[in-house]
């Protein structure tokens, strides 16, 4: 894999240049010390250059081998600086050199090909696995609300059965809930593919963190109605330059998660601060917390806790991590004492200076 990528990174043109340089440098060094070493040793030394061939393609490798043979003949055989191919042993030496170079080149090329294929197969395998998991959870997560909508509308459209007004109302409620759930899942999928595509463009703008947090809590009014929510903003006016759409999604997913996975009357606390030119967001709950053995997996795509009973695609936390990291931020997960979960997010961001907040 390493040689494969390294070889890719060296341009063909430079490969020839590199082989020429190596032979010249090595020959010069050996030539300087020639009087102190036997000529067999110089042969071996010159051949050590062949190690570098791992990084070369087959043709530059062969060129390098021929160059090495010529250099050896020119420099270390009397008469010096003259090609002398009359002696049969010189011809054999160069021939041997050439064959060794050729074999070397062929073997290395084959190894590189195998490694390349393995690399492609591995990434293909991961992609296939990703889409398998995606399709499995998709068919469940999307079909459930669709079934509700289809079933409920069928009931409502039935002419021959009389449905009471309260039942009618219940069915309509179910359709409404299922549609919103579908919309949310589509949102998650779109966000995941935005991250997956690598084309996510940051749109940074000034954002009042206090307003943002309360806006999200307002959006989650229904989900949070049985929870205690504490918000603490550590600065008087926390206005920072960030991609508010991404941060909103991050906080929404984390607070929504906390609401879904903790018992009624659990406490969710949200703290925002600005430390060392970073926006710091801490979301803590006193629920059961993640099982210790699952801590490393929570940010993986399609992660669903073993003892979770709620629905979901398992994309929420992977989106959280992706959206934080795409802004050069970091996210940590800790277990709270005695129980619960703490998420700590740090994102580098420009902040408004307190002076500009004063009016005339």
């Amino acid at each position: 894999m390493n040689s494969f990528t390294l070889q890719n990174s060296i341009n063909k043109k430079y490969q020839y240049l590199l082989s020429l340089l190596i032979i010249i440098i090595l020959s010069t060094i050996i030539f300087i010390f020639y009087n102190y070493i036997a000529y067999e040793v110089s042969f071996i030394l010159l051949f050590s250059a062949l190690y570098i061939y791992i990084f070369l393609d087959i043709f530059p490798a062969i060129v390098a081998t021929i160059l090495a043979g010529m250099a050896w003949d020119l420099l270390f055989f009397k008469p010096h600086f003259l090609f002398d191919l009359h002696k049969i042993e010189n011809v054999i030496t160069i021939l041997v050199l050439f064959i060794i170079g050729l074999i070397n080149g062929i073997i290395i090329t084959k190894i590189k090909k195998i490694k390349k294929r393995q690399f492609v197969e591995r990434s293909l395998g991961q992609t296939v696995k990703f889409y398998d998991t995606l399709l499995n959870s998709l068919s469940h997560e999307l079909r459930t609300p669709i079934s509700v909508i289809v079933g409920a509308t069928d009931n409502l459209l039935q002419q021959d059965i009389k449905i009471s007004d309260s039942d009618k109302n219940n069915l309509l409620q179910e359709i409404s809930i299922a549609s919103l759930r579908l919309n949310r899942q589509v949102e998650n999928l779109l966000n995941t593919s935005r991250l997956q595509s690598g084309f996510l463009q940051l749109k940074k703008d000034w954002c009042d963190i206090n307003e943002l947090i309360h806006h999200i809590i307002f959006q989650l009014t229904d989900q949070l109605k049985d929870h205690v929510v504490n918000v603490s903003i550590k600065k008087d006016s926390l206005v920072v330059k960030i991609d508010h759409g991404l941060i909103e999604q991050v906080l929404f997913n984390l607070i929504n998660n906390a609401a879904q996975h903790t018992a009624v009357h659990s406490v969710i606390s949200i703290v925002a601060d600005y430390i060392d030119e970073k926006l710091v967001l801490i979301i803590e709950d006193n629920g059961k917390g993640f099982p210790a053995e699952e801590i490393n997996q929570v940010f993986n795509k399609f992660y669903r806790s073993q003892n979770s009973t709620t629905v979901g695609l398992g994309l929420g936390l992977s989106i959280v991590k992706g959206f934080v990291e795409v802004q050069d931020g970091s996210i940590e997960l800790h277990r709270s004492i005695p129980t619960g979960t703490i998420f700590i997010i740090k994102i580098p961001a420009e902040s408004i200076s307190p002076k500009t907040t004063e009016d005339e």
Partner: protein
Amino acid sequence: MNNTEILVIDDEIQIRKLLEITLQSSGYGVVKANTAKEGLAAAAVSTSDLIILDLGLPDENGQIVLKKLREWYVKPVIILSVKNNEDDIVSALDNGANDYLIKPFRTAELLARIRSVLRNSTVSQDVPAIKYEDFEINFSTRSIIMNNAPVKFTTTQYELLTLFVKNEGKVLTHQYILGEIWGADYITQSQYLRVFVAQLRKKIEKNPNKPTYIITESGVGYRFVAKEIE
């Protein structure tokens, strides 16, 4: 209300159907068009008082349709689109849309927006004072009265609130507000705006964290929503 006619330009038959049912049951007349070409033609011949325009039409970009409409059509246009990209929304507002709504939308919300833009296009704001539930703004004395006593507002705070009040129900983009209050050099300095909006909310909102007067339109701007009282 019964004479009000709305032109719906949308290529999705289901959306047209839904809008037709929703609008007709609220007493509006409905004219439908499913392409940009048909829409522009219908706008020219019909007597529609409002246009609901989709941005993703098959034959032409909705932003261009909007620009073409605005060359002569002066009545309200509401954008209804699946595009939730803030840049698209801001350019639609810049191109002359009165309001926008993202699909999927709540029909109650759509009806409220329609009422609001129709009201704004008919009622003149040329009044000496406006009274709301929690405060009263007097344009002639440049003062704000809360609980029967004048409250101190800085010049910027007063101008910002006046701008909101005079555009009741309408989305004002950050750039527009900054240009109006601070001047053209400040249209990128939206951090000032966040701070002043927070200050205004602290003064006029019952709960500044759950604002009911100054509503944030995420990434786009603000909308002032309030019922005037006599």
